[in-house]
């Protein structure tokens, strides 16, 4: 009964549409991520669910309870929504000890002292912070403050958990550990969670489903694999991971296969697709660098369709792999390889099913 329904939210700030018909549903127990660049509307969406911002129109409900309905002029105040939220800055109250921070929501709810003590201890144990309950926030590390913030959001058994870029203030190493830890905790508690981030790695590694937003609009919703492998738009392809975009004119199109004449070259690219496209129309396809296969040049192999001969423009060593910047005529291609290939000419092969039409 803790699924979240967000329906056609619209919010304008002056001329700008911060939210443009944003809608989605989150299933019970799901970790649902809002992903997008800063200013895309993901935080506005989260703050609308939390009750700190009022959309101009739309509807928000958790389970049977409607929190917001512009049509009925209904808006439950933030303090009565019973949501747990972890802020980007953690917002751990600096003048209260860890214990008092956790006890505050329970004191507001007029619980008995003994009950407050039991619950706070229980949650502190859950986040492995028991020995630090009498510390003040300035005596804690960033990672510990984050645990306190999370504990404080969980201590009153909220109906859903909202996470607003909770890892952005942690350093890289700690961030990876925190991700795993939060994901484990969320799964164990079975809490319906909405997670906001601009970091695609976080989104892909933690989420059950990801929603990609830009300029206030929902671009795509899907599992991390779908978002990464089958982006439906150029923006999603470019925002989530690195990508080669190849444009061309449709030469042939028959049942599940389109052949492009790549712009500015004599190369052909066969693309496996469910869709259809009229002959002579322009298309852009996305190919992930790791899907591009590299081989030393062999005469005759580079036949011009999906297998091309390229010049090496630059190679960068990144520890566990090499990154290649290649040129096929005017077309620039990125590719990765686990080993260094000799020479300054390389044959590339782009599998037809590694291509996604994005435009």
């Amino acid at each position, binding site marked *: 009964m803790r699924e979240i329904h967000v329906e056609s939210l619209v919010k304008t700030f002056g001329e700008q549409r911060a939210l443009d018909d944003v809608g989605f549903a989150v299933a019970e127990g799901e970790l649902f991520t809002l992903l997008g660049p800063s200013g895309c509307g993901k935080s506005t969406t989260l703050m609308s669910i939390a009750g700190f911002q009022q959309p101009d129109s739309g509807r928000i409900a958790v389970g049977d309870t409607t929190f917001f309905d512009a049509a009925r002029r209904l808006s439950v105040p933030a303090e009565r*929504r019973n949501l747990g939220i972890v*802020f980007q800055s953690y*917002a751990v109250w600096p003048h209260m000890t860890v214990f008092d921070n956790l006890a*505050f929501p329970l004191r507001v709810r007029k619980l008995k002292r003994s009950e407050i003590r039991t619950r706070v201890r229980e949650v502190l144990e*859950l986040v492995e912070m028991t020995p630090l309950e009498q510390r003040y926030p300035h005596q804690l590390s960033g990672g510990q403050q984050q645990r306190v913030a999370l504990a404080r959001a969980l201590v009153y058994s909220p109906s859903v958990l909202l996470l607003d870029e909770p890892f952005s203030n942690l350093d890289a190493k700690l961030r990876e550990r925190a991700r795993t830890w939060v994901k484990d*905790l969320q799964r*164990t508690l079975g809490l319906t969670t909405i997670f906001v981030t601009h970091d695609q790695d976080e989104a892909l590694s933690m989420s059950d489903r990801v929603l990609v937003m830009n300029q206030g609009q929902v671009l795509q919703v899907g599992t991390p694999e779908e978002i990464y492998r089958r982006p439906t738009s150029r923006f999603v392809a470019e925002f989530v991971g690195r990508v080669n975009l190849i444009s061309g004119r449709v030469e042939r199109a028959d049942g599940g296969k389109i052949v492009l004449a790549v712009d500015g070259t004599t190369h052909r690219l066969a693309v496996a697709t469910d869709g259809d496209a009229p002959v002579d129309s322009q298309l852009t396809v996305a190919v992930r660098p790791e899907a591009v296969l590299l081989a030393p040049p062999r005469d005759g192999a580079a036949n011009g369709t999906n297998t091309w001969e390229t010049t090496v423009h630059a190679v960068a060593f990144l520890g566990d792999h090499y990154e290649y910047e290649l040129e096929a005529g005017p077309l620039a291609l990125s590719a990765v390889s686990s080993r260094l290939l000799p020479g300054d000419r390389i044959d590339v092969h782009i599998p037809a099913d590694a291509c996604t039409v994005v435009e």
Partner: protein
Amino acid sequence: MATGGYAAESVPPPRRSWLPAGLLQTLTWVLVVALIVGPFVPLLYASLRDRPLYEAGGVFTVQPYRDLFGDSAFWRAWVNTLEFAALTTTFAVVLGAAFAILCTRTDLPGRRVWGRLVLLPILLPSLGIVLGWIAVWGPGGYLKQWFSQKLHIDTPGIDTIVGMSVVEAARLLPIAFLTCQAALARADSSLEDAARSAGAAPMRVLTRITIPMLRPALLNAGTLIFTLAIAALGIPLLLGTPRNINFVSSYLYNTWTNAAAPDPGSVSAGAMVLLVVRNRLLGSEARFVSVGGRSSRQDLLSLGALRWPLTALFALYLLLTTVIPVLGLALMSLVTVLTPLIAPWDLFTWEHWRALNDGVFARSIRNSALIAVVGATVTTALVAIATLVAHRSRFPARRTLPFVLLYPRAIPGIIIGIGFFWAYLETGGLGDFFRDSVWGIMVAFCVRNLPLAYIVMYPTLARISEELDRAARAAGAGWWTTSRRIVLPLLRPALFAAFILLFVEILNDYDPAVFLVKPGTEVMGATMLTHFIQGSVGPVAALAMVQVAVTVVVLLVFAKVFNIGATGADDA
């Protein structure tokens, strides 16, 4: 992980607060707006009636304005006022900027200490310091006579327009100093470093980079000082009136108090004119709220051989403008007559200090102390809540509050006084209560000085992340619980600073009171002003010394508690 039973136990939902946030916010807003806008409605009304409001049967007329504009003395007063304000602004801005550069960008010895001492004039009671100036440098002043009799040097008089603007500039210089200091601290010193790297000598960097960067700060400080000088009352009244040099403020005061047939309508009209002119100049005072910049280590311009001469000049300035007036005041309070002809120890007396024990002087001290403590407490509380409504609530009219809270700073003190005079007169029993007690003066002083509290609180509040209140709201706390348990405790240092500042200002304020005092409701500043004009200078000097001493002690305690040298506070 120990999750057993955790999610199963449900917690009751948070209860609604007994005090609806909307009601509290509305009450705060109404009270603040009524207190600040309230006095101007009757003032405007009084200026448009053919007879004083306390006489029945008045009709609408623009005659007061016609009388006012037809009075050549009023126009002369304006010419004097503008000349005075322009000179004051020039002196204060040039010197203030120079001091700010010396203290922040050079290797002047002891620049930190100088930087704090130079702020003293704005923190010390302004009326007392003016009296000190008069005692020492005024016509018949101690040092003026000494110079002319012993050395036959005629020191320039401070009872000319130029002289008065020097005295006023010494009082207002800290505003220019603080504004420039803040701008210099905020300015990216790498801009100056870049010029050095490009081959510019330090002096060139100063004239081509540093000073041009200060231009907005100079403009802001200049505008503020100009408007404050226009509204000044103490100096025009004490130095100008005896020489028959009238200013707008002293013209209004004298017309109100001395004229054979008082003409309240005309004074009210004059007050409206003064108000309009000042507001045109000032625009929104919000522009002048300088939020302290981050302090970074600055690479210093070396003064070389000029170091010690400049230090000596700095010390001489402070000696002449602050130390000697205070010493003069102290001396005046301890001798029967202040004259260089007879050694002061031959004229020594405790009589003036003894006079403080009873009568009007004792009453003034009691009243001032009472309203300073009560007024500072109440105002701090009210402004704290109003600031939260303005910046941390969803109250529909919240955006009007910052403007309203800053507005009294844009109003000359005497106008607040006249405004409240009419307001009390027009509000029946409640007005009578305020008119007949010292609380009426307290309200006027509090309204006049409450922007200071807002100016102190707002930057601190702005630094408290809004996510802290949102976290409390999400945890189930309503607006008032969030304010009481989270935001106000975090704001505590600013609340204390605001209280101290208000205490000092209310203790030393005087110009709104001159229209409100009655026998029994005297306060220190107003008593000093009237008794000095009547010629009883000794007890007045003693009273001023009390103000100085209390102010210094309070500020020192405050500085000790907060481990700082001096607060940078705006003043008028």
